[in-house]
């Protein structure tokens, strides 16, 4: 490389840096000025959006340009509630905001598409629903899931079985938001979510999510199904702790066989989940197993066992007091500190 080449590279780098920074500063000055104008314009548009705009006002809203209107709606829609929100949505729809959002959802950047999907969930018209349904096949998984959540939160979701396939739930898509999605659907259509648990071709992770989504429903007919899944799951199954937690949430004594089996699991996180569930249900029949777990190798299991025993009431506290006097050193510590922490006397 000649001397001239080296100096040319240096000069080019300097020129490029100078050009970039000049561009950034000029852009900042221009956008700063523009932002002030936009800010002023938004101040005028806001009352129009919040009221029932007349045709003239609607024309003014449209004249402001789709970008300003779109961004204003995106920012504000989360802040209005009740009748004001319905009014806001109606006016924004008449002003053509949904066209902008649908265009963004179809061809914007990944970030713009995800934001558009989120906001479109607030617009119940058919075109928006169709756009969101189309976005269930978006190339980006975040946009797909956001679209599904937007549809589900406004009771427009396709059948969950179809979502499992289109979003690859439990196969490519492992987000915990799957539970939120199924919870939203189960508010209106619990049977469809329930059908996922019984489905043969449904991935285990989706079954677990469906169980979690339904675990606050109080539908005790699910207990038997969850028990069957729990008994059939292997020790290393990642879904097993989720099943056990769901059994704990139902607080139904029929879970005893499944929980008793897994209190003796070879995997610490399964034993811990089983102990936690036993405590939540108040399974006095498992008190001896829980007492033995106070000497478990894993601290988390000892902690959950101690916690569960305190939840069993007097019999559990008696066992803890006994363990604090006569157990192994590890069990004594676990029992003594659990009692002390719960401010119970040994």
């Amino acid at each position, binding site marked *: 490389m000649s001397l001239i080449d080296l100096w040319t*590279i*240096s000069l080019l780098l300097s020129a490029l840096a100078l050009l970039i920074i000049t561009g950034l500063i000029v852009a900042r000055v221009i956008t700063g000025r523009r932002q002030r104008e936009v800010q002023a314009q938004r101040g005028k548009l806001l009352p129009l959006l919040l009221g029932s705009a007349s045709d003239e006002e609607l024309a003014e809203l449209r004249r402001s340009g789709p970008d300003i209107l779109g961004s204003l709606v995106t920012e504000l829609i989360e802040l209005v509630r009740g009748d004001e929100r319905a009014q806001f949505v109606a006016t924004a729809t008449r002003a053509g905001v949904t066209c902008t959002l649908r265009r963004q959802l179809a061809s914007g*950047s990944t970030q713009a598409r995800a934001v558009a999907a*989120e906001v479109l969930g607030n617009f119940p018209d058919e075109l928006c629903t169709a756009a969101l349904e189309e976005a269930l096949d978006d190339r980006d998984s975040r946009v797909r899931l956001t679209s599904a959540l937007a549809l589900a939160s406004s009771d427009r979701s396709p059948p969950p079985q179809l979502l499992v396939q289109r979003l690859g739930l439990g196969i490519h898509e492992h*987000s915990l938001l799957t539970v*939120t999605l199924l919870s939203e659907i189960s508010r209106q259509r619990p049977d469809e979510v329930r059908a996922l648990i019984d489905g043969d071709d449904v991935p285990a992770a989706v079954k677990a999510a469906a169980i979690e989504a339904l675990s606050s429903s109080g539908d005790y007919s699910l207990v038997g199904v969850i028990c069957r899944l729990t008994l059939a799951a292997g020790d290393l199954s990642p879904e097993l702790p989720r099943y056990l937690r769901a059994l704990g949430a139902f607080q139904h004594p029929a879970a005893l066989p499944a929980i008793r089996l897994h209190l003796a699991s070879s995997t610490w996180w399964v034993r811990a989940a089983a102990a936690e569930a036993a405590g939540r249900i108040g399974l006095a029949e498992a008190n001896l197993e829980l007492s033995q777990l106070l000497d478990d190798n894993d601290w988390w299991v000892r902690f959950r066992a101690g916690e569960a025993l305190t939840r069993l009431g007097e019999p559990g506290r008696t066992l803890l007091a006994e363990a604090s006097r006569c157990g192994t050193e590890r069990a004594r510590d676990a029992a003594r500190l659990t009692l002390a922490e719960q401010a119970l006397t040994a």
Partner: protein
Amino acid sequence: MTQGFEWQPWAVTLATATAWIVIATGLLQIAFYLVQLVYAAIGLAKRPPVVRSAVLWRRYADQAPPIAVLAPAFNEEVTIVESVNSLLALHYPEFEVIVINDGSKDGTLQRLIDHFGVTRVDRFHELSVAHQPIRGIYANPRLPRLLVVDKENGGKSDALNAGINVARAPLFCSIDADSLLESDALLRTVRPFVDEPDKMVAVGGTIRLANGSRIASGRVEDVRLPRNFLALVQIVEYLRAFLMARLALSRMQALTVISGAFGLFRRRLALEVGGYSHNTVGEDMELVIKLHRYMRDNKRPYRIEFIPDPVCWTEAPEDLAVLGRQRARWQRGTLETFSKHKDMLFNPRYGRIGFIGFGQVLVVDVLGPLVEVAGYVLVPLLWAIGLLSIEYLLAFLAITFTFGVFISVATLILEEVELRRFPHARDLAILTLVSVAENFGYRQLSNFWRLRGLWQYLRKQKGWGQMTRKGFQTA
């Protein structure tokens, strides 16, 4: 010059080899930086949308796992109450703040007891990772989110280990007690753990410098540039480190560092790798490397990520002595970790982390300062004795400096396009001038500090040295 004198062939060969080593290392660094710049741009473009906190809360609050925020404190009497108040005001569904008083010699513990009304309690906690004995645990039933652990002094890593043992949440967030987290920082940082719960092991967020900014009630209210030149240079350095290097390495799945000032980790895995190591001042880097090693050794799929949005504000040293000690310590920490895990370097078993992550540490952190300082000393020397041409020397120096400026300015594009935290256009001009000025004096000084770190490492020096906190300038 030196007419009539002919150098021995070995001297000429030595001079040529020296020049080539300097050039080759420089080119490798340039190549790394260019690739990082591209990956950082892709990373910023592909990151999840930056939505308002309200939307984030509505979507993520139900599924966000509990977090234990671990704040080690040593002689933080002046700032501890404000720091803890700021942490307790975080916007997150379920979290506990565990302040670990690491045997402070001042009244840190008493300030906590007096202000928050905490009293001694019993708490059943784990003893999986080693640390100095805990003297007592303090809580107040009216503040169920606060727990104070008082322990004997053992250093930051020791305090964090005590915090990990005492914590019960599945995730823990390590921070410095004198840092300020933005109120929604935890909610933004937890997103990857919700999106990929099976794989996510650790997530780091951006650290920014609050020097010069207006702070009120534990929050950065108005971002401003500091007047102190050293603080300004560090702002440029932090932008390069976080918005370029870490973002790019994260995109390549080869991130080797999550800053000790702000990182979110899966607690159980941190326990399985033995927590923070005691025999290093680079405990934050070492924990990340241990996690990489553990997951790869066990053939478990995993991800360690950096996300640019959540921000933790910290105070940068504004005088040369403190900054010098900090940089020497960072260099020593890097070398200690690199040396301890050197078998991972270019080892196919460790994939990208062995080749890209460790390769980058080798070229930029291990060889970089050595070669640059050797270049500063040897190249003029070789020129003085007539073995190198002044024209080439100046041309290479010019390239080195202009490339440094170019990288800094390019990082400003990323900041401007994606984050835009600096409110005024003149801030960009000032930072550009700083990125030019840093080449003349600061850059050389910085390399000197790093060599001091190397010297400390070779002498097996331990400990953090004296830290001086100025405290945030509040409104």
